[in-house]
C-alpha cells in the first residue's frame, strides 16, 4: 500500500510518454487537407520555434497551398516593442536565399507589444529547396527602421523540415 502513489505516478508518466511518442509520429498534426471543387487546399500549421537573436521575441509562420498552383502563401506573425511593418521577408542559408515583398494582414497592440501579421508568396519549388536544405535557415524581416533576424534551434528545424518534406512530397505527387 505504501507504494501506491509512486506506482500511479510511474504509470501516468509512462502513459504520457507513450502518448507523446504517438503524437510525434503523426504527420497530420503538421497539416490539414481540405478537398474541394477547384483544387485541394493544404494548410501547414504554424511553426513557432523561431526567435529574434537580440530581443528573444518570437516569429511564427504557416503555409497555405491550393493544388495546381505554382506558388504557396506564407503568413507570418512577429512582435516588437514599436510598430515595425515588414516590407521584405527572406529565408537565408549559407548558399541559398529566398526573398519576397510582403502584404499586411493586420497590425495590432496587445500586452505591451505590437503584433504584426503579414503575408508573402513563394514558389512551391523554392519552398521545397528551403525545406530540403540540411541547414536551418535564418529569417530576416526588413522594415523601414531596421532588419530583424530570427533563428531556430537546429534539432527543432530538422524534425519540422523532415515532416514538411513529406507533406510537400504528398502535395506534389497528388498534383500530377
Amino acid at each position, binding site marked *: 500500500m505504501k507504494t501506491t502513489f509512486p506506482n500511479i505516478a510511474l504509470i501516468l508518466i509512462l502513459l504520457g510518454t507513450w502518448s507523446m511518442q504517438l503524437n510525434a509520429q503523426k504527420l497530420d498534426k503538421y497539416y490539414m487537407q481540405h478537398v474541394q471543387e477547384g483544387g485541394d*487546399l493544404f494548410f501547414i500549421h504554424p511553426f513557432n520555434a523561431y526567435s529574434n537573436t537580440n530581443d528573444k521575441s518570437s516569429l511564427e509562420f*504557416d503555409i497555405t497551398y491550393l493544388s495546381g498552383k505554382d506558388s504557396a502563401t506564407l503568413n507570418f506573425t512577429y512582435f516588437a516593442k514599436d510598430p515595425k511593418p515588414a516590407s521584405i521577408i527572406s529565408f537565408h542559408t549559407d548558399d541559398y536565399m529566398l526573398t519576397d515583398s510582403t502584404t499586411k*494582414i493586420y497590425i495590432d497592440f496587445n500586452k505591451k507589444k505590437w503584433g504584426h501579421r503579414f503575408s508573402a508568396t513563394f514558389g512551391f519549388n523554392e519552398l521545397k529547396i528551403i525545406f530540403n536544405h540540411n541547414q536551418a535557415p535564418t529569417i530576416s524581416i526588413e522594415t523601414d527602421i531596421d532588419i530583424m533576424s530570427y533563428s531556430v534551434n537546429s534539432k527543432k528545424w530538422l524534425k519540422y523540415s523532415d515532416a514538411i518534406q513529406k507533406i510537400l512530397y504528398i502535395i506534389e505527387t497528388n498534383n500530377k
Partner: protein
Amino acid sequence: MRKLFALIIIAGFLSSCAFVAAPVTGFIYTDVKAPIAVTGNTGSTKVGTAKMQSILGLVATGDASIEAAAKSAGITKIHHVDYEATGILGIIATFTTVVYGE
C-alpha cells in the same frame, strides 16, 4: 499520513486537470477534429487558425474565436469552421479553431 498526502495530491491532480471540450475525450490522450459551422459561401483559398491553451487546468489563455482565426488569414467570407482539440493526461490541453474561406 503518507497515504492521506498521496490521496490529496491525486485528488488535487484529478480535480484540476486540463481537459479540453470535445465530443469525445480521452483521460490519457485526446487528439480529435470536429466541425463547428458551415456557411453557404463557396470555395476556400485561405485558412486561418486561433488557439487557446490550458495548463493543469490552473491557467488558461488564448483567443480561439472564429473572428481571431479569420483575421489571422485575412478571411472575409467564411466557408466552414472546424476545430482541433488535443490533451495529454490533463497536463496540457489545446483547442484550435480553424476557419476556411476567402
